[in-house]
């Protein structure tokens, strides 16, 4: 099990493994938005929390298809399915590897990129906290989506389509918590909800993921 986590992290950090690219995508979206929206500070700083969350979500989304597709293509997934570890554990490990290589770097980078969007200084802490709290849910939900679409060649866009609606609650509570934090309002409720979603997703979704994987391998 540790072996699988170790291998996945190794593969991610090897050349072409995609580690850091999610981060770069995050950076790029954040840079593009002002080009589209215009350079006015007031507007940018108003939409900054939302854009940061949407960008983080898209960055997480785009690395999802690596979770299972590579293993499926080269036949490793069938072999893992017949190996002496439960598929539920495989699902958890895969989500954990995704979170470590995507979620954590995103949360760390968010404040820096916040500067580009003139994010209110009081919001920096909230952005990091909500991202750390919310990205595990994104990884787990995404792993489920990746398992659903694993048999489909180049299913990347379909995967986005399936997963994005599932991301909506996480996004709403995450961005709302930041905005309330900036406005000095009560943040306990959205933070609690965010934590609840993450806890629930981590506890329950891996079973669904494993079930879906079994169906897909049939």
């Amino acid at each position: 099990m540790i072996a699988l986590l170790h291998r996945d992290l190794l593969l991610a950090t090897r050349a072409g493994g995609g580690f850091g690219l999610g981060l770069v995508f995050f950076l790029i979206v954040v840079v593009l938005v002002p080009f589209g929206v215009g350079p006015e500070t007031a507007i940018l700083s108003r939409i900054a929390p939302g854009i940061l969350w949407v960008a983080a979500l898209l960055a997480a989304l785009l690395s999802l298809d690596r979770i299972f597709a590579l293993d499926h293509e080269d036949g490793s997934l069938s072999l893992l399915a017949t190996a002496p570890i439960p598929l539920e554990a495989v699902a958890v490990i895969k989500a954990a590897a995704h979170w470590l290589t995507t979620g954590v770097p995103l949360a760390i980078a968010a404040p820096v990129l916040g500067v580009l969007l003139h994010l209110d200084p009081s919001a920096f802490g909230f952005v990091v906290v909500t991202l750390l709290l919310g990205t595990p849910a994104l990884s787990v939900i995404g792993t489920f989506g990746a398992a659903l679409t694993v048999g489909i060649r180049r299913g990347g866009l379909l995967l986005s389509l399936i997963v994005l609606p599932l991301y909506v609650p996480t996004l709403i509570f995450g961005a709302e918590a930041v905005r309330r934090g900036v406005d000095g309002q009560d943040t306990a409720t959205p933070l609690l909800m965010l934590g609840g979603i993450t806890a629930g997703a981590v506890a329950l979704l891996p079973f669904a993921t494993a079930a879906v994987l079994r169906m897909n391998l049939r």
Partner: protein
Amino acid sequence: MTIMSMWEYANPKRFMGWTGHVLPWAFGGAAVCLTVGLIWGFFFTPDEMRQGSTVKIIYLHVPAALMAINAWIMMLVASLIWLVRRHHVSALAAKAAAPVGVTMTLIALATGAIWGQPMWGTYWAWDPRLTSFMILFLFYLGYMALWAAIDDPDMAADLTSVLCMVGSVFALMSRYAVNFWNQGLHQGASLSLDKEKNVADVFYQPLLFAIAGFVLLFFALVLLRTRTEIRTRRLRALIRREGQ
């Protein structure tokens, strides 16, 4: 007497030979110029009336910004030489220059941001010059990522060269587009020949030293890193032979 073409020096062996001699001098010169320029600038120049002591940042900011652009231009030239004449050293020099260039870009961005807080009241503004630097930074990242992603070194050299050329055209277009999009806050070029608008001499002279220091440091680092790349290639070839 035979006239030696300049390409002779681009032969890897020859390159290792002459750079071995030049390298210490380049590093030494860089150290001297940087020390003189930065110490002079930091300790022995007066504050500017509007900017106060923050004007001292200029000794880092401007040289780094200059070198960030020049490094890209050097990569462009080296890429062209590789595509036309297929000199391995020039391809490897382009590869070696990218991390140095991206560091310079990063320093220009960081010092600019730190300077911006007291001067403009913000760390970042979507001013054209700042924005073009951000775009340049992205180009550097893409270029380096492409080098890293391809195993075959010659193919990597080919592909990154094309990217460098196409990227340069688009970087120019972005510069124009960004100007059109937002007229900015940033200072004009103060190194222009128009003496009236230039920074006062007190700031100017140490700045020249600092610039010379950055140029030499860039040169030295590119030589050092190119030497490393050449050795890596040779090591690769030797290991492959052993494998046979």
